[in-house]
């Protein structure tokens, strides 16, 4: 019923608009053909351009300046400082070009709007001008390219030897995270070994897998280098953590990685923001299906000593799921039980 009323209302509004249009057109015809070449609308349009320029620029500067804390997330990684710096330099340079060109673009129509006694200036080309605005952008861009390139090379370089290695696996629609355990080495994994419990497909034939643990949150130590080893097992996902200026796709069949150095612990950030509930979040940023918008995981940045303590407290996955001892080759079972900290004998 309400739909019908809405439809009828819409129809009436349209009918009225068309009637008004018709009347003005007929009036125009009754008044006779316009004599002059360009009507008064020309000046009106020219003035609106100026108004748009002033109001638009006003809004742009006002919002960009006042809302900076809303759109600029506080930074929590070492390389992010470089990225942010690049961003702001690019913003300043492009901002100047933006403002200048838009001012010219909107004031010229006003200044040079049609006047009957005017004649346009026949100015088909000017090599000096054209050369200037080819070369100047080229030089400015070279500067941006060079600084961008240096940052890129640093950020994507090999992770330092001492990095904490953390495996992150994306699947529809969750993350799983694995640490190397007491030997600090991640064991092998294979997608063919995945089952309901062993969601990461850990291969227990590999000795270094026995002490691996799978926590419910990602913990990383402040000030140390951390390398995310990234995998996916069904479709492409993307590991994105905006506070760390960190993003890397998780691709089935092609392991990827990203290393960074966290600079502010979760507690530091809570103090900085005055928000006692703040948490760093891991976000999926590549369309992956129905639950794409809900793939959240918490990243906790600890002080290094807290991190070591937390690390030591974690129980190996094998200990939590002792049934999987049966998947360990017989000759390794004893060792596995010891390294996973499983007490008593197994059959």
């Amino acid at each position: 019923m309400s739909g019908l009323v809405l439809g009828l209302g819409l129809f009436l509004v349209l009918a009225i608009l068309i009637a008004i249009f018709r009347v003005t057109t007929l009036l125009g015809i009754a008044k006779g053909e316009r004599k002059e070449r360009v009507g008064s609308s020309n000046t009106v349009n020219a003035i609106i351009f100026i108004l748009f320029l002033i109001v638009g620029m006003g809004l742009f500067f006002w919002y960009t300046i006042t809302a900076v804390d809303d759109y600029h997330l506080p930074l929590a990684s070492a390389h992010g400082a470089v990225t942010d710096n690049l961003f702001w330099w690019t913003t300043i340079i492009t901002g100047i070009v933006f403002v200048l060109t838009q001012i010219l673009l909107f004031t010229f129509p006003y200044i040079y709007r049609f006047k009957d006694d005017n004649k346009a200036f026949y100015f088909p080309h000017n090599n000096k001008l054209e050369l200037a605005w080819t070369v100047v952008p080229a030089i400015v861009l070279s500067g941006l390219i060079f600084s961008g390139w240096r940052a890129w090379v640093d950020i994507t370089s090999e992770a330092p030897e001492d990095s904490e290695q953390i495996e992150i696996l994306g699947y529809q629609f969750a993350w799983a995270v694995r640490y190397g355990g007491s030997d600090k080495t991640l064991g092998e994994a294979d997608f063919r070994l995945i089952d309901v419990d062993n969601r990461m497909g850990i291969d227990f034939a590999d000795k270094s897998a026995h002490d691996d643990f799978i926590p419910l949150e990602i913990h990383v130590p402040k000030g140390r280098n951390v390398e995310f080893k990234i995998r996916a097992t069904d479709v492409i996902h993307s590991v994105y953590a905006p506070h760390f200026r960190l993003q890397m796709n998780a691709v089935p069949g092609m392991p990827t990685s990203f290393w960074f150095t966290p600079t502010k612990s979760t507690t530091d950030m809570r103090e900085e923001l005055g928000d006692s509930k703040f948490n760093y979040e891991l976000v999926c940023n590549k369309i992956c299906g129905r639950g794409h918008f809900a793939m959240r995981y918490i990243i906790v940045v600890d002080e290094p000593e807290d991190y070591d303590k937390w690390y030591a407290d974690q129980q190996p996955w094998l200990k939590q799921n002792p049934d999987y001892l049966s998947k360990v080759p017989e000759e390794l079972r004893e060792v596995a039980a010891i390294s996973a900290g499983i007490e008593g004998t197994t059959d």
Partner: protein
Amino acid sequence: MATTQIHPETEIHADDHHDHHHQSFVSKYIFSEDHKTIAKQFLITGIFWAIIGGGLSILFRLQLGFPDMDLTFLKPLLGKWLTPTGKLDSEFYLALVTMHGTIMVFFVLTAGLSGTFSNFLIPLQIGARDMASGFMNMLSYWFFFASSVVMFISLFIETGPASGGWTIYPPLSALPEAMSGSGLGMTLWLVSMVLFIASTLLGGINYITTVINLRTEGMSFSRLPLTIWAFLITAILGLLSFPVLFSAALLLVFDRSFGTSFYLSDIYIAGEALPNIGGSPILFQHLFWFLGHPEVYIVLLPALGITSEIISTNSRKPIFGYRAMIGSILGIAFLSFIVWAHHMFVTGMNPFLGSIFMFLTLIIAVPSAVKVFNYITTMWRGNIVFTPAMLFSIGLVSYFISGGLTGIFLGNSAIDINVHDTYFVVAHFHIVMGSASFFGMLAGVYHWFPKMFGRMMDEKLGYIHFWLSFIGIYFVFFPLHYIGLAGFPRRYYSFTNFDAFQGFTDLNMYVSIAAIVTFSAQFIFVFNFFWSMYRGRRAPENPWRSNTLEWTTPVEPGHGNWPGAIPEVHRWPYDYSKPGAKEDYIPQHIPLSETPESNLEEEH
């Protein structure tokens, strides 16, 4: 051999042939081989798709701006895609963004723009009776039509249309287990796209051949209007890049239906490990973007060509730096083939490749900057007439600047790490590629409507349409930059799950309202378009006092375009406000001998 016989008489007469014989309704309006009719077919199909594509975006903007809204009133339209509480289904949301992208990029801004204006303007502006092959031209439209039908049907099937994003990255698009839209919907998407590619290639070959072979006497390449230069280069881009999309799609079909592993490897889904080993999802991305990036310019270059023509005509000034404009089109076209991987900086591609592609990508800003400066200089000391077409062209330049500059952020791989796949990207390409090209299309319609239908569109409605659209589009897309910088990912159904994305609910609401207003304003255009077709003021022969050849044809040109001989060309198309000339324009077919008072020194 009989087939090699030459028929001199028919060849001579072909040139002077005009349209006396009666055509049936079907051969005149449906299976027409007349480039003007085909252009109108493309245009009207394009308008149809633009309304659908825009309408889909309104649906998902409702979800983003008003997440708590009860959409039960859309039940008759959406049926089971609404949850019992009147919300959009989250997978249907993805279908909406996917179809919006596909429709806008391919059906509206490729077929609707190039299909309309390349067809309409190439023969008219170069002085040809028709396209090189009218039959292929007709096929081009009907392949597009078939492609449209398949895509349209896919909107209504039970499992929903393709939903993996318009870029259809596998494995998501390859595995029906991953999402229901990857079932029949994706199959139809691929079928439709194959037909579409065939259409584009048939059209493109024709445009290229026609421009090269059928130019009238005196129409050298250095006298071609910039529109034609843009259409020619666009067609070449399409011809070189669309076959690559075809191969990408074909391999995807194999992976989906015949058990190959081009793009698939190490996959465990729906409770089982798939046997596929050794494929690479990144391969698909390379192939896709090898088309995908030139595609951006396939969409943009015709719009820039149209704008060059309109800005020059309505500033009553020659386009500034004609040769530089051609050079920049060529430069952009060449570079567009070697920048594709800037879409893939964070895919895990070798960082060294990333460096190379960053260099190449940022270079493309140079010819783009040249174009902008040349447009602005063309208006400097002009005598500017604000026709609706001129307004839309100025709007285009404004968008081209705003969106082009944000490209400098995204092309810089170090900055891209943080803004990749966020709303910053959405803002960037909607302004520079979407809105700019769309404005080029609208400018073209307003400018050449008198030639298409022999009547004028209503100016006042055109002004209202322009201001609502121009301001509206800035209100829709400019705020998205801020939302993107805050890290909001694109293609998110809802942001409530993350602490980091709790902000900007107001801004998102404003954006949605602006989108609804802007979309509604387009119906002013639709009304104006169809009304003026039948009831508009009769057009004079050369309403904009333009120099190009199409305005030398009768108000409503018949089959063959010129009733008499094809005019010869004696000058470039931009002799506006030439010092000494009586009028402020001298059309291309006027010989220099008739204008001794205004000839430049080298022209004596």
